[in-house]
Every structure is written in C-alpha cells, then in structure tokens.
C-alpha cells in the first residue's frame, strides 16, 4: 500500500496570515491546505491523510487549545504546531502539556517554521508506522484461542512451561503444543520478540 502525500493543514481565522503561511510553505515545496476554522478542518479531514497541523492558539469559535482537545478525543495523532502571539506563552505551555508537538511565536523566521514542519512530518510518519505495527499485533492477538491467550500471558510473565502447566492444571506437553501455536500465530521468532510485541500494545501507564 502506497502512502498518501503528506499535507500541512493550516488553521487560522486571519485571512492574510493563513494565505501567507500557505504561500511560505509552497515556496519551500510543502503542500498545504488552509482552513479558516476548526470546524472547517474537521469537515474536510480524513484520518488516513498523513501530515501535520499548524494552528493559531487564538481563534474565534473553537480555539486552538479546544481543537487540540477535540483531536485527542477523536484519536487523531497528527502532530500540532501552535502559532502564538506575544502574550500567549501560558497558552502555549498548556498546549505543550497536552501533547502539542511544538510552538512558534509570530512573527517568525521562515526557516523556524519550515524546520518544525519537517520534524512534525517525520514524527507523523513514525507514528503511523508504529500504529500499523500495533494494529497488526492486535490482529494476531485476536486470532488466538482463549487457552492460547492464557499461555501467552503466563509465558510473557517469564514463567517456565512446567509452572504454566501447574497454573492451568494441564500437562506440560499440552502447554508446549499451545506455546508452539502462539509463536506461530504471533509470527514471533523468539520469546523476547513476543514480549516486545506485548509491550507495544500494552496500554500506556
């Protein structure tokens, strides 16, 4: 499957600022889409579209911070670069605490923006690759039988076959057979790889 081209979504209510950002990105060979409001963005955005967001912190209607919150709720992981005015540093700090990728104070040098945009696009690519990886692990986990899942949980806790057999009340031979099925279905070459897979899909603490 070939990836879609990366797009920078610029959301700013100020026509001139929005258009000038689009032109600046275009002059650096970056494809940009512009939206005048958060609502506009959500109406056109498709989650499979890779890229990053450039958001004005202050906007009428839904502010940049509220929009970030909405993105998190919708499970959208596109990196967000905030653009703030002079006195908006506290807002920028709050945005960073809620997972913003970076922020810029306007007016700014073109290179500052372009560098951040490049890093954000790299981050998005990594995020998407990781997501695809964990999606595949989840698919494989879903193919295990209940008994195989039990065996997997116990062996990834570091228990030997003999102990697993004791815990489950079955013979050691039966455990060995289940374990072979688990390794096969999970496409894991070793116990270490299996443990790494489980860590990748474990809910973050």
């Amino acid at each position, binding site marked *: 499957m070939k990836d879609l081209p990366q797009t920078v979504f610029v959301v700013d209510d*100020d026509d*001139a*600022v929005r*258009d*000038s*950002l689009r*032109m*600046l990105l*275009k*002059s*650096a060979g970056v494809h940009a889409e512009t939206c005048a409001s958060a609502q506009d963005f959500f109406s056109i955005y498709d989650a499979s579209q890779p890229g990053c967001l450039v958001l004005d912190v*202050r906007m009428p209607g839904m502010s940049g911070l509220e929009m970030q919150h909405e993105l998190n709720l919708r499970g959208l992981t596109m990196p967000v670069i905030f*653009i703030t*005015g*002079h*006195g908006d540093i506290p807002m920028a700090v709050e945005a960073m605490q809620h997972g913003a990728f970076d922020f810029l104070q*306007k*007016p*700014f*040098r*073109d290179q500052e923006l372009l560098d951040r945009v490049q890093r954000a696009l790299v981050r998005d690519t990594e995020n998407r690759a990781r997501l695809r990886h964990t999606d595949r692990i989840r698919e494989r986990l879903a193919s295990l039988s209940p008994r195989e899942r039990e065996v997997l949980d116990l062996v990834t806790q570091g228990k030997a076959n003999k102990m697993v057999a004791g815990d489950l009340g079955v013979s050691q031979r039966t455990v060995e057979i289940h374990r072979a099925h688990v390794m096969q279905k999970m496409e894991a070459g070793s116990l270490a790889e299996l443990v790494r897979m489980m860590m990748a899909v474990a809910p973050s603490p």
Partner: protein
Amino acid sequence: MTAPAPEVLALLEAAFDAAVIIDERGRIEAFNASAEAMFGYRAADAIGRNVSMLMTAADRGTHDDHLRRHLADGESRVLGRGRDVRAQHRDGSEFSIFLSVGRIANTSPPRFVGFLHDTSLRRKALATLEKERQVNRLYLDLAQVMLVATDRSGVVQLANQRAIRVLKRGHSAIVDSNWLESCVAPDDRATARTAFRALLMSGHDEPQVCEYHVRSSDGEDRFITWRGVALRDINNLVTGVMLSGEDITDQRRAENEAHRALERMNSVARLATMGEMAAGISHELNQPLAAIANYAQACVRFLRMPAPDLPEISGALEQIAGQALRAGEIIRRIRSLVRNEDVRRETQDINELIREVHGLLASDARVHDGKLALDLASPLPNVTVDGVQIQQVLMNLVHNAFEAQAPEHDGAPFEVRIATRATAAGDVEVSVSDLGPGLAGEAEQKIFEPFFTTKASGTGLGLAISRSIIKAHDARLGYRANLPRGACFYFVLPAHQEAPP
C-alpha cells in the same frame, strides 16, 4: 446647792445646740430647749436625774466612775476636746452626737456644762452627698468618651476612667497636673492651646470641636476628637472647661487603610486595563506583521528558484502592501481611542466641578498627611467642558502635587491649593499649586512628554493625557514655578459665550 445663775440659763436657752449642766455627782441641773427637742424629755423631768439617762447602755455604767476619777486626780478624757459619742432618746432610739464638755470655773461643788450637737443629720447629709458623688463618678466612668475638666489655667480637676485608660496614667497623675503639658502630644500642644483659649473666650454654650493627639504614659499617641464647653460659676464667670473626647485613632487608621486599599485596587485595575489594552494592541498589530513577514520570506524563496513564479510573487507583494496599510489603520484607531474624540460638553460652573471632587481629593490629602485648600473666586463666568474629564485632570494634578511633596516632608506646611480666578481677558484660570520642590531644569522641559516621570512608580502618562484633554478643550496645560516655592500647573478655559438670540 445653788442653781446656776439666771444669766447662764438664759445663755443656754439661746444656744442652738443642746446644752446640759450637771453637778459633781452627775445630776442634771439645767436642760435647755434644744436638749428637750433632742432627747424628748421636758427640762422639769430631766433636772435632778443622773445624766447617764441620756447615754446608751454601753456608756451609762462607766460615766459615774469617770466623773469620780476626774474629781479625785483631775484626769479627763472629755474635758477640753470634743468627741463623737452615741446618745439615747427618751423613746430608746440611739443617735450620734458631737459632745464637748467644759468645767465651769470657780464653782463649788464643781459643775460641768456639756454641749451636744446632733451629727446624725450631718452624717446623713454627708452619706447622701458621698453616694451622689459615687453615682456621678459611676456615670463619668461608665461614659464611653474621655471626660476631663480643667480650671482656667488648664490644671486638671477631674478625669474619668476612660481618660485614665487612654492616657495610661493613674487618676492622681492626671488630676492637678497641667493638661496641655502633661497629656497633650508635644506636636499638638499649639493646636490644643489655641482651642483651649477659644473655649475660655467663647460667649456661648455650643460645644466646640477640635482634634488633637494625646500622649499616653508609654509614649503612644492617640488621636482624639474633642468637644469642649466652658464651665461657669453662678455669676456666669468662666471657671474652666469640660472636654469630652472620642478616641478615633483606630477608626481613622481603618479609614486610611481602606483608602489605601482602594487606591491600590484602583492602580491595579488601571494596570490591568492597560495590560489588556497592550495585549490587545500587540495581537492586532502582530497579525499583519506576521503576514508581511511570511509573504516577504516566501517571495525571497520564490525569487531564488530557477524559474520564479512571478504571478505568485506579485500577488504576495500586493498582500504585503495591503497588510502594511492594515497595520497603519490599527494604529490610527488606537490613537483616536486614546484621544477620545467623543466628548460631552456642557456649560458648567468650574467651582462646582471642583467642589464635587473635593471630598475624594481631601481623602487623598489625608493619606499623604497634608491639607487641600480651595481658593475659588466667585462669581466666575461659566465654561463649556466635559466635566468628568476636567475632574480627572484635577485629580491627576492634585495627586501628583501630594506625591511631589511626600518625600521631603520636613515639617513644612504640607499643602496643595486649587485656585480659580478670572483672567484679564475674562476667561477662567484653574491652577493647582504645591509647596514641594518644584521642577528643575530638564524636568521642566520634559514634564509633558509621554513616559517621562520623576516618580519611582509613575507611568509618565498622567500629565501627557491631562494635557491632551485640556488641549481638546481649546486650552493649554501650563507649568510655572509657585512662589516662594513649589510647582504650579494651570490651564485657562475660555468663558462660555451666550449664543446670540
């Protein structure tokens, strides 16, 4: 035995006190009318009986012995000096008398005369008087105000508990001391003396009010509002003064504290508003500036390309021009906001406008420990002004004046004066002068420039704004030195011209 001489008896009858003559064995020989009234016996019944019948049971048994001993060796506990004794009425009731006894010379056998003065009445009167005094004292002491009475020379005659508590001196340390010298705070003695003299001279009974500090024994000054009246004797001559004082130290402190809090709040509010305005302005200006920067940087990038996209560049340059104009428009809007062109002009009496803010300004004066004097000429022509704006200018000037004097408050009169007068041309001059250091050299040149300030915490905008307000009234805010010292800010408002009919 011979009876007393008739002259003696006549003398006794005329005496106001009871008088009894006895012989050497204690038998009554004479009993005057006052004695009859005092004891309830008639003289005829008393004469010939032993005098001990007039005594209480406690004394009765020992009298004859005393008499015999005296006759034997001349010793006496009674003769020549009076003493308080108890006596018994015919009806058995006892009462107090003052008894003085004398031996009648050259009589044989010896005779004695006793004068008996009924002290019960006097004692009763004394007791009543004492009780009245105590009640009065109680009233004085219950009073929540300080009560102090002095004679004409200021020596304290009376001080109540409240006064004792405030002064933290004993009653005896206050009474008989000179009020002005021992109790009034040294700095306020001149004030107190003037008020004291005025009271002595006052021809009426209206209480006179004055305020000064008293100093307690531990050196603490308390601020007291005094109401004084002159005390007069029955010939209507002034004998002294009575002062009732209310300790308003805490109240005044609370007032000043409240005023300071309000002032702090006001300056915080002003700062907040200015901060918000500044944030708003910077955001407004930032938008076109950010757009201009972006477009310009995009143009540079486009121009570096092997085949520059000229229509794109041309569009960006047009945008840059447009955004620069937008920034200019924003600045123009802010200027007109500050200039406040939408003023309300009304024809008014300038003196009235000044009196309206006098209360506010006076409390400012109090915080700065100074006085605000009004020197308003009347009548004056009316002026056509925005009253609120003119009042703001006045408040700003007065506040500056107090701040200018505050640092070098060295006991010099601490006064700001607002004066109005008609000029030769018939216009109205308003001036605010102080007795501070005035303006020197550079300060005089720059005082009206925005952001110039001589105050540690000043914004430097007050005078600049004041001047633009006055300018909008077709007048000029000027400065001149106040003579002999201090600064004077003034402006001349054109007199209101009646429109021709």
